């Protein structure tokens, strides 16, 4: 297996007196889904934020293809091929679906926006997600929670990033849309993307994960194979076992 695309080495992050991440090491490879699971306040979203350039670590390094990089902002991360969808989707309510998908990355043709090309690309991305968005020229204010999630994911996929970071992508969705997001993650992996999936829904994570990283109180508690049992994950999430305690590996 080739080296990791994106790595964290000894990353720590504080918010005032709260230690959100403590000395975290993590790797994600191409053609792999790394799931990050943990209890509320375990540091999952902070970890996603560091990977996507939204938070700058107080200590430690972020490595891209083995070389240290400074992810100053999500835009810098984006330009390096790391895209993210966060829990607060950051959609502009009054803009329509196409405008939201292309916000800041508009396709131009001469001095004008190429609305036709953008609309076509927006439909292509939404189709990939098997999305149930009825109309791409309606303001996103009019869409349901699930449809808004889909628009945010479509925006992340614009430009085919190498690493896709998804923070709680199924939190507000119905079963059908959850199924579509999980299928999408499988497809992203098949196409060779590295996917970081952050969630507290252990069942959804286990369905698609190659490896599962368990965070507890800001530290990496353990890293499991994707086929680890639910009980092992739960024990690690709740701290019922010591960090790195030898766990029985499932049959591989």
């Amino acid at each position, binding site marked *: *297996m080739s080296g990791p695309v994106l790595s964290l080495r000894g990353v720590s992050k504080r918010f005032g007196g709260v230690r959100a991440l403590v000395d975290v090491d993590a790797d994600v*490879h191409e*053609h792999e889904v790394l799931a990050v699971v943990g209890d509320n306040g375990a540091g999952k979203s902070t970890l996603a934020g560091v990977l996507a350039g939204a938070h700058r670590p107080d200590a430690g390094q972020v490595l891209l293809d083995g070389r240290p990089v400074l992810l100053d902002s999500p835009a810098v991360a984006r330009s390096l091929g790391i895209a993210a969808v966060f829990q607060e989707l950051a959609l502009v309510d009054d803009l329509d679906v196409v405008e939201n998908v292309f916000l800041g990355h508009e396709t131009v043709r001469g001095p004008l926006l190429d609305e036709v090309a953008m609309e076509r690309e927006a439909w292509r991305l939404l189709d990939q997600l098997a999305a149930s968005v009825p109309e791409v020229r309606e303001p996103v204010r009019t869409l349901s929670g699930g449809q808004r999630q889909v628009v945010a994911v479509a925006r992340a996929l614009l430009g085919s990033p190498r690493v896709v970071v998804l923070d709680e992508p199924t939190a507000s969705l119905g079963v*059908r849309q959850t199924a579509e997001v999980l*299928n999408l993650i499988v497809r992203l992996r098949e196409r060779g993307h590295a996917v970081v999936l952050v969630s507290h829904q252990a*069942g959804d994570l*286990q*369905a698609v994960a190659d490896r599962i990283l368990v965070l507890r109180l800001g530290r990496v508690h353990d890293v499991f194979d994707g086929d680890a049992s639910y009980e092992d994950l739960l024990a690690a999430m709740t701290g019922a076992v010591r960090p790195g305690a030898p766990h029985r590996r499932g*049959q*591989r």
Partner: protein
Amino acid sequence: MRADRVTPGSQTSLREANRARIVSAVQQRGSLTQIELAGVTGLSPATISNIVKELTVAGVLHTAQSTRNGRRALQVTLARNLGLVAGIRFGMRSLSVALADASMRILAEQRMPLAPDHRADAGLQRTAMLVREMMEAVDADPSELLAVGVGVPAPVDIRTGQVVTVGMMRGWDGVHVDEILGAELDVPVTADNDSTLAAIAEARFGAGAGHDSVAYVRVSHGVGGGLVLGGRAVHGRSGVAGEIGHVSVDEHGPVCRCGNRGCLEMLVGASSLLSMLPPEAGHLTLADLVTRAREGDAGCRRVVFDAGRHLGVALANLCNLVDPDVVVIGGKLAEAGELLLEPLRTSLGQRVVATSRGPVEVVPSTLGADAGVRGALAAALDQARMFGSLGVTS
């Protein structure tokens, strides 16, 4: 095509019995011409024509002009507005749900990956929600749902809808699938083994269509099998019939989840196949293995080749016992195509009793990953007919 020739009923019930026989034939085969209906039911073309006309007016059947062998023919299907059925298939790592109308036209389909040790309680509840959401997406009222068919990758006693295994499928052992789902959706639910349902689908609509006895084997994360003999699915005493994945191939082999040693599944199931690959290859899925084998990776090809040989050994035993017309191979591993089938045929051919008819035909599934869910739809429609939802009493 198989003929359902049963002695016609007594004078008084004759017409009702003939109506039921026609509806049953159309329902099981999806779509038939009037001429084919005559062949299948053994009724005269005039009787067929009268009853079809009557049932069309009653809104049970639908007819359309078509041509067959250059002649005009009347194609008969069930009327679409009779209602909807849902087919559900739980795999070891995936879930498929489909909605179809009474003519078996599929209106909506949804798949999703599942965790390695998914549980019945949460899984069935979520599936019920999924069915409701899919009904909503096709603008159907909940009252339009007539029946549900469910396939589970474990032996099921079809009389009670209970998973009968002990300690084999964590979270599903002993579960009354039809009761739980019936309570959620409030319609008749029929539960069966997923490979048996897939065998029914392949025999009715797929690679086994036109054959009387079909042996179906699904090689995926687990290994399952189903038998249709003389046009009927075989369940056995408790639902274990056809479980070829747990046939002993190597007496001294590793211990299986079923408690025995050296089962076929321990040799050709996903986890054993993947464990044969070098660790440098990283975490691979069964789909990755098939893709790489097709792309020419030597190690992956060898793994698929050996799996084909082992399957051939187990299938030879099955063929010597029941002598099916055709063996249909489905499941994820079957997507490797001839890479799997060629060594399978060779090893099977060496071990079956040689006959003047030559070796049994071994073909890939034509319904592929849809076989289980199509079988579940068919089972649901059978159930709807038995509950009198298709306009006739049977």
